[in-house]
């Protein structure tokens, strides 16, 4: 596995958080350039399609809008910071397996409810989006026109959104019953089945990243010429 896939999920999160933080804290443009290079390198390590391409495609519009609103030095300074943030998160999403994160959180003593919130939302979004598309088609079959003036469009929006939201709310009781039968009572501790290994060197690396961010922050406040 390339690009950090073997690292502990907390280490991946620490790297993805530290790179943008340092890009903002270190002096521009050299600090931003260094962090953007590392972040793009990490994204590229996951391959062109899942890593580098989405990072570049997501960051590119920001450069365009920055050029529209700012001069070239400001565009470069802010653009490098945004590129670092985008590339490090794209790398994180391509590298981090949600199941390993859940196991790591449970092993670290986090409540199973928090892991449930993220996993349940991620699984509910595509279901509700598909339902929204079906409602749009059904309402069109009944003669709903989403065109015309603003008032007509707002009425059409209400006719589309209301069934979606109400049907989703009616599911809450079913979900609550399902959670209860599976014993997911808030505050309960679970035993992780296969917790990811967390070597001492990775724990030390996470502390080192935190200290690096704090040191860079302290230096920025002391040296006034930092941007």
């Amino acid at each position, binding site marked *: 596995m390339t690009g950090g896939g073997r690292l502990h999920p907390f280490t991946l999160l620490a790297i993805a958080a530290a790179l943008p933080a340092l890009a903002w804290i270190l002096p521009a443009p050299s600090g931003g350039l260094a962090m953007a290079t590392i972040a793009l390198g990490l994204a590229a390590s996951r391959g062109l399609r899942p890593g580098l391409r989405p990072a570049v495609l997501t960051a590119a519009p*920001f450069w365009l809008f*920055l050029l529209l609103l700012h001069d070239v030095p400001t565009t470069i300074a802010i653009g490098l910071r945004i590129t670092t943030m985008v590339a490090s998160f794209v790398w994180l999403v391509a590298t981090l397996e949600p199941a390993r994160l859940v196991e790591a959180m449970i092993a670290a003593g986090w409540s199973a409810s928090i892991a449930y919130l993220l996993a349940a939302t991620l699984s509910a*979004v595509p279901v509700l989006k598909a339902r929204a598309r079906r409602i*749009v088609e059904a309402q069109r079959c009944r003669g709903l026109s989403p065109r015309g003036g603003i008032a007509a469009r707002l009425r059409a929006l*209400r006719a589309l959104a209301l069934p979606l939201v109400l049907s989703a709310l009616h599911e809450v009781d079913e979900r609550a019953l399902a959670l209860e039968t599976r014993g997911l009572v*808030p505050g309960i501790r679970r035993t992780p089945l296969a917790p990811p290994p967390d070597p001492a060197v990775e724990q030390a690396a996470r502390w080192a990243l935190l200290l690096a961010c704090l040191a860079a922050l302290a230096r920025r406040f002391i040296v006034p010429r930092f941007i």
Partner: protein
Amino acid sequence: MSIRLLALIPVAAAISLALSAAVDAVALPLFLDTTGTILATALAGPGVGIATGVVTSAVNTLRNPTFWPFVVVQIIVALYAWVAARAGLFRSFRTAVPAGLGLGVIASLTSTPISYLVFGCTTTGGIALTTALGKALGLPPLGACFFGSFVSDFGDKAVTFALVTSVLHALPRRTAARFPWALRAIGAA
């Protein structure tokens, strides 16, 4: 927190993210990305609302990392919606729409410093273009940035409040009564 309220959070967060399909169908310049946060707060109070806002931002961040810094706006929205629910402002459109307009002002005041400092006012194409318009009108950089955020947030939050009001009134009383704040939010308790 009860199991029902725990189950409500991912559903409300998913509502915020799935409504884009309905917005796309009517081609209106709206986000409605705080609908779940406001709805969860009106149904179950500020704790559930804030949790919904944070989960919405976290899941949105996995699609586009530029959403994460705006998690503060979701928290402010939840707190504002709680005040509105306590005051029963979801009782009719006549009270909900002005409350939504007020939230539009507060949300744009909250998002402007984030947008200005972190993104140079380039969070979306629409905001960048309206910020450029503000600059062309002679506004200072921060003022132009606020103008861009305000134009996008003002109407959006009013429509969101109106939509949540419609939902709360369309809920059967028996269902609404299962959530601790729902009846008070519509002025029925």
